């Protein structure tokens, strides 16, 4: 495309990273289902291993199929580079591995996906990575949690399942004062609805399992490097600023400029920890990503109509959806995701935990399962499922109280979605 045109979001969603295959002319991105790549000669091999040349070695570290979704996500988020990994959880693991050493701390919002709360509280603590919890409704709580050991701040742009919208700009200011990167999990909003880098985020993560893939068929994660954080400003991030023995003393932060973080995650984290994505999953996620703007708009429009309907329903005690005027996060949603507030909403069903369990058993169009971001409408009762391993207080703090039902509103006809909820609510 001519350089004087900035391609729009929908054009990037289809074309970024994906030119026709140079050897066959294949228009769709081929699935490079191979473990390894042959070298031209010994010198070429040495150049690839020494990072002197760009190229593919082994599918644990890179794949041309995954490279396309990596570049596309970097383009859609407005970042410098991406790294695809096996899952959203793997994205969190590889990101923090590049930033933390044993005994370090990171600050995370309490309003997070339950699986992330578990990962941070238990698995990461066994690495000596200590999470300090803060509250997105009290930005001061992030400031108070900062210590000399803090290495990062972690938030979700729209939190799962409570639907809280983070004041990214305010938290980014805290991170900047502390001299640490702000990591934003943008899974629920996607770059179609919210661009965290525009508000000061340094690293964006995704579970591509959700809206990026969008069809409920592949697990995958993504790390996007914003390219603005100065890793060389101090010795706090030795993976980037210190000579690495793994690469004969190379300093990644000075060698790879504004995409050094993504490279560090690839050649130190992904290479050594091993959570590689399958090229086949990358292909399916790529196909989904092409329709991201269409789907996200439809998800948001349907969710808003469902939220409005439920707000007037006699068996519904409350509805939490930032797209509803009057919602406590509505003003923030208008700033951070003006095109819509996404597919997720929660509501309280009259009758508490028992009614919640009855409701998820009575739906007929909605699928009762533990995922979000499918074309299909999904329903879950977090109290008895995704959040059941947390304490009662943690469940309530995460927006998963006993009466809470979470919907991931799909892109079916909205009248059918509403009719299914009505018939199921009638049975509670």
């Amino acid at each position: 495309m001519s350089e004087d045109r900035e391609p729009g979001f929908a054009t990037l969603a289809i074309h970024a990273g994906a030119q026709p295959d140079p050897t066959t002319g294949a228009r769709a991105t081929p699935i490079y289902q191979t473990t390894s790549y042959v070298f031209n000669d010994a010198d070429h091999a040495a150049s690839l291993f020494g990072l002197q040349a760009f190229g593919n070695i082994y599918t644990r570290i890179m794949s041309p199929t995954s490279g396309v979704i990596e570049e596309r996500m970097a383009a859609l988020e407005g970042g410098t580079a991406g790294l695809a990994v096996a899952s959203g959880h793997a994205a969190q693991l590889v990101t923090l591995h590049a930033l933390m050493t044993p005994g370090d701390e990171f600050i995370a919002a309490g309003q997070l996906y339950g699986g992330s709360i578990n990962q941070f509280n238990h698995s990461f603590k066994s690495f000596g990575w200590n999470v300090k919890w803060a509250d997105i409704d009290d930005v001061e709580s992030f400031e108070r949690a900062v210590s000399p050991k803090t290495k990062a701040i972690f938030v979700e742009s729209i939190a799962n399942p409570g639907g809280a919208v983070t004041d990214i700009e305010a938290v980014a200011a805290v991170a900047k004062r502390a001299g640490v990167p702000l990591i934003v999990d943008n899974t629920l909003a996607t770059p179609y609805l919210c661009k965290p880098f525009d508000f000061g985020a340094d690293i964006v993560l995704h579970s591509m399992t959700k809206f990026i893939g969008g069809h409920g068929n592949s697990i995958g994660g993504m790390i996007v490097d914003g390219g603005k954080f100065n890793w060389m400003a101090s010795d706090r991030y030795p993976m980037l600023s210190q000579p690495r023995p793994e690469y004969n003393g190379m300093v990644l932060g000075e060698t790879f400029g504004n995409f050094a973080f993504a490279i560090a995650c690839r050649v130190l984290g992904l290479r050594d920890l091993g959570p590689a994505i399958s090229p086949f999953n990358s292909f399916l996620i790529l196909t989904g990503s092409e329709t991201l703007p269409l789907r996200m708009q439809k998800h948001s429009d349907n969710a808003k109509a469902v939220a409005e309907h439920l707000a007037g329903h006699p068996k519904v005690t409350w509805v939490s959806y930032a797209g509803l005027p009057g919602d406590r996060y509505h003003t923030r949603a208008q700033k951070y995701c003006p095109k819509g507030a996404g597919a997720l909403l929660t509501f309280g069903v009259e009758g508490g935990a028992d009614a919640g369990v009855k409701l998820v058993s009575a739906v007929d169009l909605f699928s009762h399962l533990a995922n979000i971001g499918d074309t299909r409408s999904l329903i879950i009762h977090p109290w008895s499922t995704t959040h059941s391993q947390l304490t009662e207080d943690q469940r309530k703090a995460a927006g998963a109280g006993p009466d809470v039902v979470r919907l991931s509103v799909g892109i079916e006809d909205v009248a059918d979605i509403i009719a299914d909820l009505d018939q199921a609510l009638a049975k509670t």
Partner: protein
Amino acid sequence: METAPEPLTYSDDLILSILRSVKTIAMVGATPNPARPAYLVLKYLLLQGFHVIPVNPGHAGKTLLGQTVYAKLADIPEPIDMVEIFRRSEAAEGIVDEALKLYPLPRVIWMQLSVRNDAAAAKAEAAGLTVIMDRCPKIEYGRLCGEIAWFGVNSRQISSRPRQAPAQFQRMRIQAKD
């Protein structure tokens, strides 16, 4: 308080025209230390078929990746298309002064990523040279030929046309202008 200079912007067309046209590059600050960016870039540009002449007084007379190392630009016995400056920013002005004494004159002064010297650039531009600052030729070549996409880097290239198939595996080339 010192204010940061405006970030530099160069069009892809300008970078492409340089990388398509230069053949002989003198790299001031080339090093035999394989951990240093200067070594990586030297190796990569040689792999891509450029004739790269290392310049480093500490290693003058030795060979580096098969190329003879010279102590200074004036010692190089052949015409140079581009001088790449792989030294700290303050050293760039002296190197530009040396480059401007060469005959024939090089056409391009390229200062490596993180190297920027506006006074040196002004001098070179006044003499009719093209100047690029604060960019890595390895990154720019890899970005524009498509190789860097294998590392998930946002190349900012959108096109429905296939690139030319490489003659060897994974050695993409910047194509001639179409």
